[in-house]
């Protein structure tokens, strides 16, 4: 069928909206001047300053550690939860409970967790942030996966059971691949949310070395310099690289499964 080009107007509006500020950030990162707002000529000096900033580097590492850890927890538990709720439960209460961390404002969750960690006298650190991020990420993963599950054909699972597969094998071989796009989307969402999460991390990291958003938050408190723009540009570059590598990897993965 012919595609009406009109259909793609909103898409372009969205991309312009999403990328205009990003482009501005990147351009301003090459600002020779001190101001984050007014461009005064080209310079790479802010990148040099950034490179010398050990806190930013460590912040980035900590952020990745937290994001990978919490995404792993959230993806596994969230997927299981979605399947369990969709296939083995009729409880509306459990449904609501599973969605709650995603719909609870960060602040409430942060305060609650802080109180809780205090009560059990846990010395805070990166793992307490991972647990906290895992909690809301799990809800996001579960929600996305369930959206996919609700449209999935249950007769596929029945067919698998009929062919002699137990619950677990059916889950691994049939349900999971069916859900894969949902799980990947959920994991991506979880990872993205964690990378960027500030409030909860701020409250639950204790005295451990801060994650990048916390570093940025405190940098910004003392005024915005193009150094922060340079950081944004680098993050963007890293993201692009990650995406391209990720694409390559999935393509290799697909190639292999097509042969088998």
């Amino acid at each position, binding site marked *: 069928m012919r595609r009406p080009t009109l259909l793609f107007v909103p898409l372009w509006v969205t991309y312009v909206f999403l990328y205009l500020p990003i482009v501005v950030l990147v351009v301003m990162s090459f600002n020779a001047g001190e101001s984050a707002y007014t461009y005064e000529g080209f310079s790479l000096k802010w990148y040099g300053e950034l490179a010398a900033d050990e806190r930013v580097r460590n912040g980035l590492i900590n952020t990745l550690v937290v994001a990978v850890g919490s995404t792993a927890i959230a993806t596994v538990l969230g997927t299981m939860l979605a399947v369990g709720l969709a296939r083995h439960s009729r409880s509306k209460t459990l449904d609501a409970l599973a969605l709650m961390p995603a719909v609870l404002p960060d602040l409430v969750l942060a305060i609650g967790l802080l109180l809780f960690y*205090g009560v059990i006298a846990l010395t805070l650190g990166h793992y307490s942030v991972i647990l906290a991020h895992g909690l809301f990420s799990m809800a996001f993963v579960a929600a996305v996966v369930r959206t996919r599950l609700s449209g999935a054909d249950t007769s596929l699972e029945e067919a698998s059971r009929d062919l002699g597969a137990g619950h677990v094998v059916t889950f691994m071989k049939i349900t999971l691949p069916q859900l894969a796009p949902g799980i990947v989307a959920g994991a991506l969402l979880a990872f993205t949310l964690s990378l960027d999460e500030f409030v909860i991390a*701020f409250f639950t990291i*204790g*005295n451990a070395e*801060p994650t990048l958003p*916390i570093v940025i938050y405190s940098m910004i408190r003392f*005024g915005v310099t193009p150094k922060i723009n340079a950081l944004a540009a680098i993050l963007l570059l890293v993201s692009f690289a990650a995406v391209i590598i990720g694409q390559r990897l999935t393509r290799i993965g697909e190639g292999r499964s097509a042969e088998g």
Partner: protein
Amino acid sequence: ACGGESSTSPEGTNAAAADDLKPNADLTKQSIQVTVWDGYLPEEFTKKAKEQLKVKDLKIALHATNEDAMAKLTASGDSGIDVAFVSGQYAQALNEQGLLEPIHPELIPNLANLYPEATQLSYDKGNKISVPYTWGTTGICYRTDLVKKKPTSWNDLLKPPAWADKKVTMMTTERWLALPALKALGYSVNTDKDEEIAQAKELLLAQKPHLLGYDDTTFGDKLKSGEALMVEAWDGWCPTTDPKGNIAFEVPKEGSDLWVDTMVIMKSSKNKEAAHALINYILAPENHSWAAENINYKVPNKAAMERVKVAKGSLLGIKPDELLDGESIVDLGQASTKYTRLSTEVTAQS
């Protein structure tokens, strides 16, 4: 366990109730965890202090605001923090909750370097629970090239002239939000009288439509970019040393505050001797002067200030006795909620 109980311990816990600390304790067995504002200590601080004090470990955590620090220090069972940097009234509040270890002056010989004025701060007379690190005041920071008339009164900010309409900012942290109005009305910054606070509110509400915004942190940038012409500012954060030389600071004639950022030692600390040793290290003139030179805040350390070269336009020249003209902000306990409400009422108004 949910945060500090409301302690009934009297103001200024006496030293007799404190632990016995050994001046010659083996510091190599102690590790120090500090929480401090970002940028408040030099980058090489950790390495140098660790070397010199010979402590087992020294770690720095950062907080952005007093509030953040309070959340850390009061919420969980054991924060793990030995030394914290907070503003004076917060030190007072922490002490009210029984969370602070009294200062053992015998372990901090460098206390002698402080200005005498720095031992008479109203939230902690005699430095019983805190040791001041920086101090300063609040005033109007402005663009000399763009204002039509130099501001001299808080009213210049509260009722901006037409040329400054929507080009002024106020601070949002509640006590500093109220300060210009209270001072303009001639009241104490520590008032707990409903009537006075209500009048301040009227002034602030009337001001709101003429504001660019409320800003605690980036007002300097707004001045530099010309978005703002006059802002309420802490002295050190007013970019008077900007090379363009078009920014100045003025303490309005109605008077202002004296704020102090201090160091405290947590009662829960297991490394109290090392904590004292660290404060003593910071008070050494060659160390303490760093703060004045790099964060543009005056330090209450006579010996240190004498080493500092005052740059052109710098506000470091303000003398301690001038500073003491300012009124110290103290914690108001229950009455502090009145200020929260005031700031809510002002900011919620549309």
